[in-house]
């Protein structure tokens, strides 16, 4: 088959054999509808049953027929739903960026220890402050929300930088995972020391924090939480082009004009901000960061970040809302810790990823 014959052959080819590279609008619309439905459900459904009409009235600025309903919706369900939407999107995007950057299908903020770094960052700042106890766990506005965001992001970034530096020397995907595990142990050791010197109620608060929750973000904290994540998501969005080039490896990326070093640090900064902020406010939440990008790849049959990034935002946000809804166990008086639900759903997905791809290096 020479170039000439192929060329002549296609001159008369009636149908273009070239696939469409853009994301389909219908797909995006479907995901927006999914996210909207999940968001609405999380406002409607809860331990206290409130008629949907009442929920709608409160959201539109009206007065519910009961004051408690008003309080439940405005100070509890609404911030929680917004938090879940943002946190799910942020973790998914951070996971997506890290999987491509490290060329490792199992990379995400939780697995590589970046989340641990965030909790350590907050804990250390608190420890260095006037009180040994306070804020990660108790969330008294000791540091101020901006301080919390900064400490968490810096902690996350510190771990990210270490992992990045070591990952450049070791090529093995497995070594990287072990490295992440060790970083987690190390940081949890330091956090344990902190806990040791804390009061019992703070320890119990810490344990609750490790279970993960979207319900702890107050409106006041939302003023730092949401803008910080928006900045992180926008910073991530401008990495789609170089991330696509990095699919071919760093050498190819460089040959196409990518400043690989700059991209690496830009990705580290945005992923650290995303993972750090979510961890500080919601606790270390596993599996969403790994699972959502893979679900998007499988659903939309693409590794193109221009497709994966927006779909990860929407699907990540939706899944976080759904996981939170499941953890409320509607219809019962009980509630499960969020991380129990994400693990129960996420672990099988990760197993499926590993089983489906014989090659570890494929992303």
């Amino acid at each position, binding site marked *: 088959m020479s170039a000439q014959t*192929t060329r002549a052959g296609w001159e008369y080819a009636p149908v273009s054999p070239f*696939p469409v590279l853009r994301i389909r609008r219908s797909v995006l619309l479907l995901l927006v509808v999914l996210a909207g439905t999940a968001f609405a459900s999380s406002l409607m459904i809860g331990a206290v049953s409130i008629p949907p009409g009442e929920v709608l009235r409160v959201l539109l600025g009206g007065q519910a027929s009961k004051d408690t309903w008003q309080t439940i919706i405005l100070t509890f369900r609404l911030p929680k739903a917004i938090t879940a939407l943002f946190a799910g999107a942020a973790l998914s995007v951070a996971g997506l960026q890290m999987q491509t950057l490290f060329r490792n299908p199992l990379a995400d903020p939780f697995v590589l220890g970046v989340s641990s770094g965030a909790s350590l960052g907050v804990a250390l700042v608190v420890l260095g402050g006037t009180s040994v106890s306070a804020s990660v766990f108790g969330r008294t506005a000791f540091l101020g929300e901006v301080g919390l965001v900064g400490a968490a992001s810096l902690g996350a970034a510190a771990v990210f930088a270490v992992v990045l530096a070591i990952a450049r020397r070791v090529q093995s995907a497995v070594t990287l995972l072990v490295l992440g595990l060790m970083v987690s142990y190390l940081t949890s050791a330091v956090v344990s020391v902190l806990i040791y010197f804390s009061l019992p109620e703070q320890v119990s608060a810490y344990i609750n924090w490790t279970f993960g929750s979207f319900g702890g973000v107050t409106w006041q904290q939302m003023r730092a939480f949401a803008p910080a994540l928006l900045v992180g998501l926008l910073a991530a969005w401008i990495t789609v082009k170089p991330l696509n080039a990095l699919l071919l490896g760093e050498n190819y990326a460089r040959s196409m004009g990518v400043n690989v070093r700059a991209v690496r640090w830009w990705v580290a900064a945005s992923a650290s901000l995303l993972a750090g902020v979510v961890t500080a406010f919601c606790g270390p939440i596993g599996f969403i960061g790994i699972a959502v990008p893979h679900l998007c790849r499988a659903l939309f049959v693409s590794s193109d970040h221009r497709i994966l990034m927006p779909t990860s935002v929407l699907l990540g946000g939706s899944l976080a809302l759904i996981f939170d809804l499941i953890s409320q166990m509607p219809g019962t008086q009980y509630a499960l810790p969020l991380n129990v639900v994400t693990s129960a759903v996420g672990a099988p997905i990760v197993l499926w990823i590993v089983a489906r791809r014989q090659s570890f290096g494929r992303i």
Partner: protein
Amino acid sequence: MITEWQAAEHVVHELGRNSRHAETDGHVFGNALHAAVAVYAKDLTTGYRQGARVRVVHRRLELALPRGKLTALLGPNGAGKSTLMRTLAGLQPALAGTVWVDGTPLRALSLQAIARKLAVVLTDRVDVGYVTAYALAALGRYPYTRWDGQLTPEDEQIVQEAMRLAGCSELAGRMVVELSDGERQRVMIARALAQQTPIIFLDEPTAFLDLPRRVEVMHLLRSLAHQTKRALLISTHDLELALRFADLLWLMGSDGTFVAGTPTELLQRGELLRVFAAEGEEVQRYLKEVHHRWLAEGSGA
């Protein structure tokens, strides 16, 4: 710094010695040089610098890569083929000397500017999950697309034409992971073509291919160089395929020798045997055989 005139003189000297390239008449000035030579290096010393330690691979090389020709870089492992290619491609700094890429000194070019002049096909394993051959080839448009990499209809046309040229448009919808090595190599060549550079470097493009695919790829590269007037440089261990398909050979010895010329010229001058003189007896015997066979065939034709 040498003048363009000096460079031109050199090129005429190097390329004019053999009849197949002797279209130039000795009065070559700026545009004529630019028209003939895509990459030119003078006093080029390649190697590695690590702190105070310097390891020189080649000293004071002078070479010219002609446009519209397939040039093959041959030499034993460790002779510095990859080092030279990486240096000429701007992927690693030269220890001394200057490289002109498409008329501009390499050190005056940004990464983005180099990407518009020079594309590479590497031996790196391309291990991507859900990427179609078309999407992979489309990555060649990277230096031209806007911030998010969105392709314009013109970009898509260029990619499609590149795939036709590389003989792989029927693979467009297939996933890259499902392709055979030969098919994947064609897609990688299409990606390099889509980058629309006057120069393409290919590092051992036939390395993982079976014999029929090797011949096909070499034939493809030769005809691409001639048809599209691009300067193609490949490194290879396929001596006989290089003798058969390359317009120009760059021979590298383990001892740092470097000679350039057409296959016929190098055979006639006995350079093939000289460059591999340090090799063992069996190698010498094989090379002599190749040498004599090719000389005999050459004189017959």
